[in-house]
């Protein structure tokens, strides 16, 4: 069993070196990877998509369905963050630049490398939308995967950390689906009140 784990870790490090060794070939790719892999571009883009979905539909029934999806995305994100916090208490994995000779073109984070919390967060935001709206879902998924790749490219995550982030998001999606199903009636009613109550007319666009 221990040999198997060491083989996986070794493969993970080799894969990291293959991706990270390309740093310095083209400066424009390096700068783009730094921006895409940052904490600001992709997360804000995904949140903007969620706001767009919140206001998108014109018919009441479809709008309620879309808003439930947006709420599910937010719940999945919260559960994913919680799982990452718990996992960080249990295990700590060093960052690639601390273990092997990596080309670091990003700031040096000090928290655990496994699982990638940024990848877990963006994939958690994406999965519920992907399940309901395929076109917008593909757009969100591709930007999330771009962020995941760039985090490996700039030298702050192993590919295994990214995979761990994606798995964390999937588990949190299952958990949030269970929670949403449990309180679906109450959520639906709350959204209907938000939609129809005249007192809230002022805050609607």
């Amino acid at each position, binding site marked *: 069993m221990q040999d198997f784990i060491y083989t996986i870790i070794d493969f993970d490090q080799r894969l990291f070196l293959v991706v990270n060794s390309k740093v310095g070939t083209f400066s424009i790719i390096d700068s783009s990877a730094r921006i895409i892999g940052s904490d600001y*571009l992709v997360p804000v883009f995904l949140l*903007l998509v969620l*706001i767009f979905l919140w206001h998108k539909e014109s018919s009441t029934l479809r709008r309620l369905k879309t808003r439930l999806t947006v709420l599910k995305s937010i719940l999945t994100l919260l559960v994913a963050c919680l799982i990452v916090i718990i996992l960080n208490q249990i295990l700590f994995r060093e960052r690639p630049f601390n273990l092997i000779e990596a080309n670091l073109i990003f700031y040096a984070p000090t928290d655990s490398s496994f699982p990638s919390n940024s990848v877990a967060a963006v994939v958690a935001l994406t999965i519920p939308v992907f399940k309901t709206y395929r076109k917008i879902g593909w757009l969100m998924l591709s930007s999330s995967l771009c962020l995941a790749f760039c985090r490996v490219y700039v030298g702050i995550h192993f590919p295994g950390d990214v995979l761990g982030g994606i798995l964390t998001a999937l588990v949190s999606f299952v958990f949030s689906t269970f929670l949403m199903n449990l309180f679906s009636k109450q959520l639906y009613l709350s959204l209907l009140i938000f939609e129809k109550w005249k007192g809230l007319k002022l*805050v609607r666009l």
Partner: protein
Amino acid sequence: MLGFHLDYYLCCVIAVSGLLFIATSNRNSSAAVIPYCLGIILMLTAAILFFSTDNRIINDYQGGLDANEQTGLFALSTLTALIIRKLFSVGKKIIRTNSN
């Protein structure tokens, strides 16, 4: 520009305002090209302004934003953009009523 937190907040306000232009034009009319383009320009401007004015790839303990600060500032900027949008549409309504 004005400090990391304020820069992030202002750029998010610009980006969300742009998005609201797109979202509301999409809902009201299928051929609303001008608000659509304006929305995209605003969102791109926000991103370019944020990343080109300073070094944004810094750790949270070196002046960057941690996850909680990001969430709080983004929520605040969304609220601000919604208020601006609401004031904009109320102003438009008042001008229309006065001109009639």
